């Protein structure tokens, strides 16, 4: 049977319309190429709109001691020195320019008294560093770039008569397959969510900007789009994923009522002075300051409180430790029976700030708790607990170009790319990551297309992709996709969660393999018209690959670091610090192998106090003093 297929030809496909995808598209269009932006939801709705706290860039507007070197050090510390140093370096150096550029496109950040862009404190950042707009910074980012794209389309319209001649947005279209010919990218295949009709894109280069994987877990702050599509598409196209064991559980998600469980409570609440207490009324974070952070964090309430007024002469409150530390601490408190009846702890800003200030600085938090939980945070404490928030692992890329290792023509940026954040991401570093590497991906893809020329898509590749889309309606196995999704979430939640052990991870791997067999029997009711069950059947396939890759990487890494905590290996290991876990896919299963982490070059090595590095590195590494 041959079915009529809609076809498009572009220079570059950008899959994803979050911060990373839109920034890549702007760059590619400005390099003179024709770009298609493809996204699963409406234009302007991508997950990036949910980002609240801010975007980290060492502009030094609030504390002039800040610069890229301080930011770089914070990022490496936050990631526990497992970051790809070059990505962290580029990010720290280029973030200020990426923020200032948004202002030239109409963004309106909050201001300092001098009229510069204001910057706020956040966990793990030595100085106030996050550019912000109240607590809706992600919305500002998305809208600014959405409007930038409209502006470019208006220019194109004036020149060519057609607004979509150089950039076209294909909204509510899911990509199910990356196509390759002769080992190189040749296009992508997918379907319109509205009517299930299939679409072929021919293009020599693809930028993946598909975001995170949160929906693999039961309790998450992510939107439904976080199903790891880009991670899975890349694996299937022959690219690698790096360090998929590292998942960030944000310490403060809502815990009650059940329907809002997981929804994020922004870290700004703590940045603005919110304190964490257990049911005994104890401000417990003082007990959980790890040795590596002792000289930077206050060990008593008096000093912690003074820090809010005098940051130069006091250490910071331990509520602002990196997220992995705070999550583990909350987890321990709850396990020790000092949690609330709903399994959380208390977070309170009402004692430090006036109602008026809270409503002004944290408007959407006030709104969120008032409307969804019936809690007035200007008067009462919030109940919070860890929620799956961000995936540090992702597509293995070349730092300077964002090119996926092993697949010419494929690029990845934003949350779906790996390496930048090491074992734990600092808050605020994602939004600038999107901008820095989105731009670099767009630029490099444009350069590649100009030199690579065009490619052809073969009929057989199209047919195979098409058969996969038709399958859920032709099968009779009777498995319900919603039910399988719930089962997967139970497995990841119970066995691959915040605290992990070998036996549970082994168990998870077996169970995931069994689920994999069952998804081959998914049957979908109804027809192709906007059919969520049909849509979920593809998302599920991706989530299972991600879960497999995460569980298999986690069982191998015998240490605890950042977003990976092993009960059976509770310490950091200097050996494992030098290793990346690399996932690849052989068509049936995910295989994980080890690869040495690139070594810090001397000029970056020398930015650190050797005593600090002693906590992470072996004597041999220290003696070498960097790679050159």
């Amino acid at each position, binding site marked *: 049977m041959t079915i009529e297929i809609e076809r498009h030809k572009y220079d570059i496909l950008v899959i994803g319309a979050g911060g990373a995808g839109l920034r890549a598209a702007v760059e590619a269009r400005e390099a003179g190429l024709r770009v298609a932006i493809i996204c699963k939801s409406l234009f302007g709705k*991508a997950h990036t709109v949910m980002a609240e706290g801010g975007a980290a860039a060492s502009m030094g507007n609030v504390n002039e001691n800040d610069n890229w070197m301080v930011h770089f050090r914070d990022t490496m510390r936050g990631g526990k020195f497992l970051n790809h140093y070059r990505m962290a370096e580029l990010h720290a150096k280029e973030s200020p320019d990426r923020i200032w550029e948004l*202002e030239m496109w109409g963004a*309106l950040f909050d201001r300092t008294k001098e*009229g510069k862009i204001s910057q706020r404190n956040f966990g793990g950042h030595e100085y106030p560093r996050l550019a912000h707009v*109240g607590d809706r910074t992600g919305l500002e980012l998305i809208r600014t770039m959405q409007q930038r794209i409209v502006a470019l389309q*208006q220019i194109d319209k004036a020149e060519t008569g057609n607004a979509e001649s150089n950039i076209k947005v294909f909204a509510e279209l899911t990509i199910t397959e990356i196509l390759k010919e002769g080992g190189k990218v040749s296009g992508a295949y997918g379907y319109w969510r509205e009517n299930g009709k299939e679409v072929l894109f021919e293009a020599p280069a693809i930028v993946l900007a598909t975001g995170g994987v949160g929906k693999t877990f039961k309790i998450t702050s992510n939107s439904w789009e976080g199903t790891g599509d880009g991670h899975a598409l890349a694996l299937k196209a022959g690219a690698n994923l790096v360090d998929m064991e590292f998942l960030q559980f944000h310490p403060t998600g809502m815990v009650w*009522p059940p329907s*809002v469980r997981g929804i994020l409570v922004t870290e700004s609440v703590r940045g603005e002075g919110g304190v964490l207490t257990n049911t005994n009324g104890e401000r417990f974070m003082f007990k959980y300051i790890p040795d590596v952070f002792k000289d930077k964090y206050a060990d008593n309430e008096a000093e912690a409180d003074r820090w809010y007024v005098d940051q130069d002469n006091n250490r910071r409150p331990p509520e602002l430790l990196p997220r992995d530390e705070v999550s583990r601490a909350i987890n321990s408190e709850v396990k020790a029976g000092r949690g609330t009846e709903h399994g959380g702890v208390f977070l309170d800003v009402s004692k430090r700030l006036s109602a008026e200030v809270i409503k002004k600085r944290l408007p959407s938090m006030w709104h969120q708790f008032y409307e969804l939980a019936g809690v007035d945070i200007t008067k009462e404490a919030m109940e919070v607990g860890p929620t799956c928030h961000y995936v540090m692992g992702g597509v293995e890329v070349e730092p300077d170009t964002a090119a996926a290792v092993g697949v010419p023509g494929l690029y990845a940026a934003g949350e779906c790319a790996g390496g930048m954040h090491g074992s734990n991401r600092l808050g605020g570093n994602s939004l600038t990551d999107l901008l820095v590497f989105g731009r670099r991906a767009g630029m490099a893809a444009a350069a590649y297309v100009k030199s690579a020329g065009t490619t052809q898509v073969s009929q057989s590749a199209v047919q195979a992709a098409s058969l996969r889309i038709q399958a859920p309606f032709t099968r009779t196995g009777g498995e319900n996709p919603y039910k399988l999704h719930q089962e997967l979430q139970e497995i990841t939640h119970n066995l691959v969660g915040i605290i992990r052990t070998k036996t549970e991870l082994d168990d998870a791997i077996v169970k995931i393999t069994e689920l994999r067999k069952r998804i081959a029997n998914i049957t979908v009711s109804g027809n192709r018209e906007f059919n*969520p069950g049909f849509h979920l059947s593809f998302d599920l396939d991706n989530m299972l690959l991600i879960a497999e890759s995460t569980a298999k990487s986690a069982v191998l890494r015998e240490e605890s670091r950042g977003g990976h905590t092993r009960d059976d290996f509770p310490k950091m290991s200097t050996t494992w610090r030098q290793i990346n876990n690399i996932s690849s896919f052989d068509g049936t299963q995910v295989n994980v192998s080890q690869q040495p982490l690139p070594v810090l070059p001397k000029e970056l090595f020398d930015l650190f106090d050797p005593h600090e590095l002693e906590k992470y590195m072996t004597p041999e590494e220290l003696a070498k003093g960097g790679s050159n």
Partner: protein
Amino acid sequence: MARKLNLRIWRGNKESGALQNVIVEANEGEVVLDVIHRVQAEQLNDLAVRWNCKAGKCGSCSMEINGKPRLACMTQVSSFPEGEEITITPLRAFPVIKDLVTDVSFNYKKAMEIPSFQPPVGMKPGEPRMAQVDVERSQEFRKCIECFLCQDTCHVIRDHEENKSSFAGPRFFIRIAELDMHPLDILRNRKKKAQEEHGLGMCNITKCCTEVCPEHIRITDNAIIPMKERVVDEKYDPLRWLGSKIRKREGIL
């Protein structure tokens, strides 16, 4: 406590449709989107609904609940009296695609018609200095999550397809106001164009748009009325118009 809900959900497509009765369980604290998801998972697997964030931040889950334009993820089930039927229908101002999903492309077309932000020629990144009070007016409008509930409720287009071509709607009046009040924007005549090209004159200030806005943006008081007033002023007083632009440009120096 769990309770049983009687829902009437509109199901259908461009051609035809009808309300379908569904009985579903609702737990404490749940919002309408939660129960729609339960219906989807357990009874009507192919029930079409748009949503993304489930936290009132993306503006995807717009629909009409008992005839009122609302975000399904921010509407508590407990806000309806026990035993009362809840009727859930798609946005009326836009063509249906399927069930609760409508074709909102009208809004994206309107966005394209509004002249973009234009910074001063020669201004370099990092240079702008703006006072917080000066950015706050536009920031209020930039809170918009593009849920299009205001568009849906506005009587000028709600049942008047014929007005759509000449009327941008409240969402885009605040976009114009935002740019007009933006301390760095130098494009002239935004208000006049709003009046002449985007249908501001068709708005008769019923304030329905402000009432439904989940972001509590004061669409009429802070955007529409000031623009209408100043359009009138400027028609009579060209010097004052020039003054306002000069002041605006001084703000950036």
